[in-house]
């Protein structure tokens, strides 16, 4: 139970089942909670909107990591699944008139269904073949939402009304970001908690068994097709939630927000954060959402000395994006999560090196 120099010794099953065991872990959790609660009062509207985007990205990245990092099923169809969530929630709430929470739940279920359908090729394929199959699903979903005029009423985009939760209306510009922050923080927190716990259940373990050695997993009685399809369903459910929240938060849905680039961005998040780590998905979502803004600030700051940077901002941003993916994969394939672990280890073992 207590952390000693030689590790953590559990003396009862309940202590072993805890998510957090040591005092340092509780301390960090407490600090983080305080930080998250104080954040909306110290940030201005712009940075608060970045925080909101991060929270949405966290939900999407955790969802994708369940599929890619934990089950080993690579998916390039993230953008398409986000679109399914966004469009269905927007249409159900605004055009059909369903209460927004119900519409969001329906969108989650619908996205899970669509995700399971496009996961079907995964029953026969894996690795690179599956990557190509999901690339196709991205292209097909993108095509459908672009061409199906009924979805957007011939406008090419869809306006979404301001979020209304159980009679509580999100306010105007002054309080908009702050109120959204609480909603999103709650949902992102629940997502992280659900995902953390998922991998302590038999279902979650079967996902990891499929990833690590599918044939061996089958030999010990894991139902592979069921595990794979459930992974697709659970993962796209979370992604659908992220999509629905994108729609209600940005109050406009258009297909440009859900292209292949978005799929790649989300893959980049979980790679940079750490494949197969919930905390990693969170770190990755923070890093990749803030990266464009940091580059923008940097190139504005360097605008006088290096005008090239400021002139070519979009290109520089994409180049850095590509470079970050490559460097992380070569230098630290297990991502920010592993780096953080190493930092913690360093302090824990100090003054020894190991």
């Amino acid at each position, binding site marked *: 139970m207590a952390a000693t120099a030689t590790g953590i010794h559990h003396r009862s099953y309940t202590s072993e089942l805890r998510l957090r065991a040591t005092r340092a872990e509780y301390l960090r959790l407490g600090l983080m909670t305080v930080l998250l609660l104080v954040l909306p009062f110290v940030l201005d509207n712009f940075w608060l909107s970045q925080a909101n985007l991060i929270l949405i990205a966290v939900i999407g990245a955790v969802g994708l990591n369940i599929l*890619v990092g934990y089950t*080993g099923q*690579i998916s390039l169809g993230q953008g398409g699944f986000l679109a399914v969530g966004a469009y269905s929630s927007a249409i159900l709430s605004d055009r059909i008139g369903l209460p927004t929470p119900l519409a969001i739940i329906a969108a989650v279920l619908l996205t899970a269904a669509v995700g399971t359908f496009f996961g*079907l*090729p995964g029953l*026969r*394929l894996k*690795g*690179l*073949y599956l*990557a*190509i*199959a999901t*690339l*196709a*699903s991205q*292209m*097909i979903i993108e*095509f459908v939402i672009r*061409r199906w005029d009924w979805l957007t009423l011939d406008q090419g985009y869809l306006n979404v009304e301001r979020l209304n939760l159980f009679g509580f209306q999100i306010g105007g510009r002054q309080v908009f970001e702050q109120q959204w922050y609480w909603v999103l923080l709650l949902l992102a927190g629940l997502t992280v908690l659900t995902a953390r716990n998922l991998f302590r259940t038999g279902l979650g373990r079967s996902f990891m068994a499929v990833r690590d*050695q599918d*044939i*061996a997993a089958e*030999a010990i009685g894991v139902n592979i097709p069921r595990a794979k399809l459930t992974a697709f369903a659970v993962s796209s459910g979370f992604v659908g939630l992220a999509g629905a929240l994108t729609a209600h938060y940005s109050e406009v849905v258009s297909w440009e927000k859900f292209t292949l680039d978005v799929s*790649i961005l989300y*893959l*980049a998040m979980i*790679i940079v954060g750490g*494949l197969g780590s919930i905390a990693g998905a969170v770190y990755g979502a923070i890093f990749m959402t803030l990266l464009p803004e940091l580059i923008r600030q940097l190139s504005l700051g360097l605008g006088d000395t290096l005008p090239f940077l400021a002139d*070519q901002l*979009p*290109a*520089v*941003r*994409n*180049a850095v*994006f*590509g*470079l*970050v*993916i*490559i460097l992380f*994969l*070569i230098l630290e*394939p297990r991502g920010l999560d592993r780096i953080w672990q190493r930092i913690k280890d360093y302090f824990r073992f100090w003054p020894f090196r190991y």
Partner: protein
Amino acid sequence: MSTFINQLAYGLADGSILALAALGFVLIYKATGVINFAQGEFLLVGAYMFYTAFVVMDLPLVVAVLFGVVVATLIGVLVERLILRPMVGENPISIIMVTIGLSSLLKALVQAFYGTSPKSQPNLLPRGSVDILGASVPINRLAAILIAAVVLTAFTVFFRKSRHGIAMRAVADDQQAAMTMGISVRRIFALAWALAAVSALIAGVLVGDISAVDNNIAAFGLLVFPVVILGGLDSVPGTIIGGLTIGLLKQFTAGYLDPGLATVIPYIVLVLILLVRPYGIFGETRIERV
């Protein structure tokens, strides 16, 4: 009838260029086991390198072609050395992602140096049209088919007859056995990337000449996936059959049904093939054991 002949020529021209692009993809996959998502960007970079040599630096055509080939080879070898070699032994997801990162990087570099507006270059292929069975078919399409056919034949002969080609096939077949026979697997890997870059260069220049040199070339490159899945990921003849089939299918859909549908039809075919025959027409079926 005349429309049909026209569609046929356009489809075959697109298809043969696709086959060239897919050839590079298959070369890399066969020799090194890497799925290269940056193949489209190789086309893009190739087209811009040639544009730089031919239009910006105003070199004569032959020198410009040579310049393009040298740069393409260099890029291919560098990519293999700097990015893929450290990744040997990683899981497929990481290797796919590293090439996706590479594609993002290459596209951004091209954009930074050349901007996003299309560039026009003087015509390489003869313009005008010939009359075939009452249809007027542009000569440049026919020339593209011819060039692609010559290049594909040259590559096929290279694999069958030359020392390096045979070494490449040996490495593709069994790396360890090839190594014990004294073949340098590293050099073959580099060769595969260099050849892939060169075939992409030729494909890129042809696309650039038929339409324009701009960022859309990379999107054209994404079509290699339907092609290689149809033909089989590790089959050189498969790229030709796959390329021509996808090219024709796309053209006929655009001509007879709906131009919008033509952009997505290759991917629908891709999913259907994966469901029915995942290893394509000529692909090697992999049997897995623990």
